[in-house]
């Protein structure tokens, strides 16, 4: 149902081939299509507006390259702009987990993928960096949340353990106990999984802030669903206000959503996107790749080859 942006732009530039510069009129016509394409990809409106302005400045007056269709050239400009806005090709994605026990705190709305991502990160740290990781669930609300994390920890292999469950303990107390256990147990990394919360639940938001105060995490990750719509901005802003966030994780990138939320959240927080969740299984975690996400937002699998072709000729 979504048209790739290059298809949308096709007709607009029909009269414009070969030499000359992109006129403001041509660019504006193209930008209207780009605007709709981004909105259909769920990029938040304020982000779309800023982005369109920056593309306009860049595109107007640009020399039209003879061998590339002007539509493709605009797509290339848009694509480059998106990649840059997403953090560029050399985005900083590693986790700061050098001083043991380094604490990572996970936060986000209900059902966004925090618990699953907690286990995925633990598995990755233990396998790729030989870290010993302790997982602790601070979720005293969702039925069986603690069992879920314990089961997943077991699936992560011998270098990953989970904090023994004590029924009836409050999240802040579990956090203290976890930090203590990580120190005593000589763990390299402690990951705190927290309950899902809406950003307008004041009690739950201050609980999260309190946990961060106690645990002093070196990484606090906001885990969000890549299928999120226009609410992405609001959610990112409100979590950013209350927690010492250091990065974002976008889950369910294995879906067929266009993932515009990635751009929105990155834009309002300025935080790096550290990982993409790409499956339910524990190996379904990819390092963030701005070019891949940009191509996805524009709705074209072939964007890379298209852009490569265009850049060769530009």
């Amino acid at each position, binding site marked *: 149902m979504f048209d790739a942006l290059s298809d949308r732009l096709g007709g607009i530039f029909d009269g414009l081939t070969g030499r000359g510069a992109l006129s403001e009129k041509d660019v504006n016509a193209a930008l209207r299509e780009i605007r709709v394409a981004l909105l259909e990809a769920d990029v938040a*409106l304020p982000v779309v507006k800023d982005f369109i302005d920056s593309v306009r400045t860049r595109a107007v007056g640009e020399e039209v390259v003879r061998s590339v269709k002007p539509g493709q050239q605009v797509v290339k400009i848009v694509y480059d702009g998106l990649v840059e806005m997403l953090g560029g090709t050399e985005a900083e994605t590693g986790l700061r987990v050098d001083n043991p026990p380094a604490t990572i705190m996970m936060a986000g709305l209900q059902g966004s*993928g925090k618990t699953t991502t907690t286990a995925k990160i633990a598995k990755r740290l233990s396998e790729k960096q030989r870290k010993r990781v302790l997982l602790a669930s601070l979720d005293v609300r969702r039925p069986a949340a603690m069992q*879920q994390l314990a089961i997943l920890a077991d699936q992560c292999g011998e270098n990953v353990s989970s904090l023994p469950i004590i029924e009836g303990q409050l999240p802040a107390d579990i956090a203290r106990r976890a930090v203590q256990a990580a120190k005593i147990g000589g763990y390299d990394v402690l990951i705190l999984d927290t309950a899902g919360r809406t950003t307008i639940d004041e009690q739950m938001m201050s609980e999260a802030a309190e946990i961060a105060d106690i645990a002093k995490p070196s990484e606090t990750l906001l885990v969000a669903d890549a*299928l999120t719509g*226009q609410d992405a901005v*609001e959610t990112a802003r409100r979590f950013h206000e209350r927690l010492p966030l250091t990065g974002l994780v976008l889950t369910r990138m*294995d879906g067929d959503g266009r993932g515009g939320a990635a751009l929105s959240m990155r834009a309002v927080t300025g935080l790096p996107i550290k990982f993409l969740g790409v499956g339910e299984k524990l190996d379904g975690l990819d390092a963030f790749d701005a070019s891949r996400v940009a191509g996805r937002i524009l709705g074209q699998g072939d964007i890379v080859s298209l852009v490569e072709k265009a850049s060769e000729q530009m």
Partner: protein
Amino acid sequence: ARSSSRLGSGLAAFNKRKLDDETLEDLEDLLITSDLGAAVARRVTKNLSKERFDREITENEIKQALATEIEDVLAPREKIVDFSDGPRPRVVLFVGVNGSGKTTTIGKIASKLKDQGAKALLVAGDTFRAAAIEQLTVWGDRAGIPVMSKPTGADAAGLVYEAIERAREEDLDLVLVDTAGRLQNKAELMAELAKVVRVIRKMDPEAPHDVILVLDATVGQNALSQVEAFRHTAGVTGLVMTKLDGTAKGGVLVAIAEAHDLPIHFIGVGEGADDLRPFSAHAFSQALVGAID
């Protein structure tokens, strides 16, 4: 506490403005920020302008007019359902993408049914996710309704078969079947769901009597593709939208209501057993535009 909607706070800026092209365009933008989608936002503002173009409008007037436009789209989809009624055993299947709120919604409905005195059975058809069975079991225990399960990794269709047999033997009123979350573009997982439906149909050609697609209010335009795919695979008969207690107001439901003749049964407004409300087109529209009802 319910927050005022994004649309509501945005509309304050429209007080005493003339409804000209520029204002209409701004309005359209505002609707887009509520996930209505560009096309539906355009149609709604167009309708709105028909009688009021070039007139000066107050904030309240614009809010009410917008709410009415939206309510008109949603009203035909309002349909309260009483699962404790109808055929016995009534088989209700819950489907949707990961984390949308299926298990919790079943838990809430189970609590309601218990109050109504219906004899129900919960079926832990999510045999994949860690602790999915335990989660449903907690809900079943809370409501005092039995939960039927098989170990993680078991065949969901086989479990459902046995559950319906048991419901017949024990003369139960209904069977609520949980399923694993799955993204609609995963062919293998969708085929698995199709198999569950097939097995149920084989036992009773009229069943599943309800196939409820559970949607998360924060979801954007992808919800349209979810509805299409789950309709196609599982024959969805109705919708539930969860998590309307957050900042997202579920505007994509308006786009869905325009495109699909599917009843919307309930909304979820929290994580507790009582946080389920029958869908009301009026209340939903008012909340979406942030109007004080």
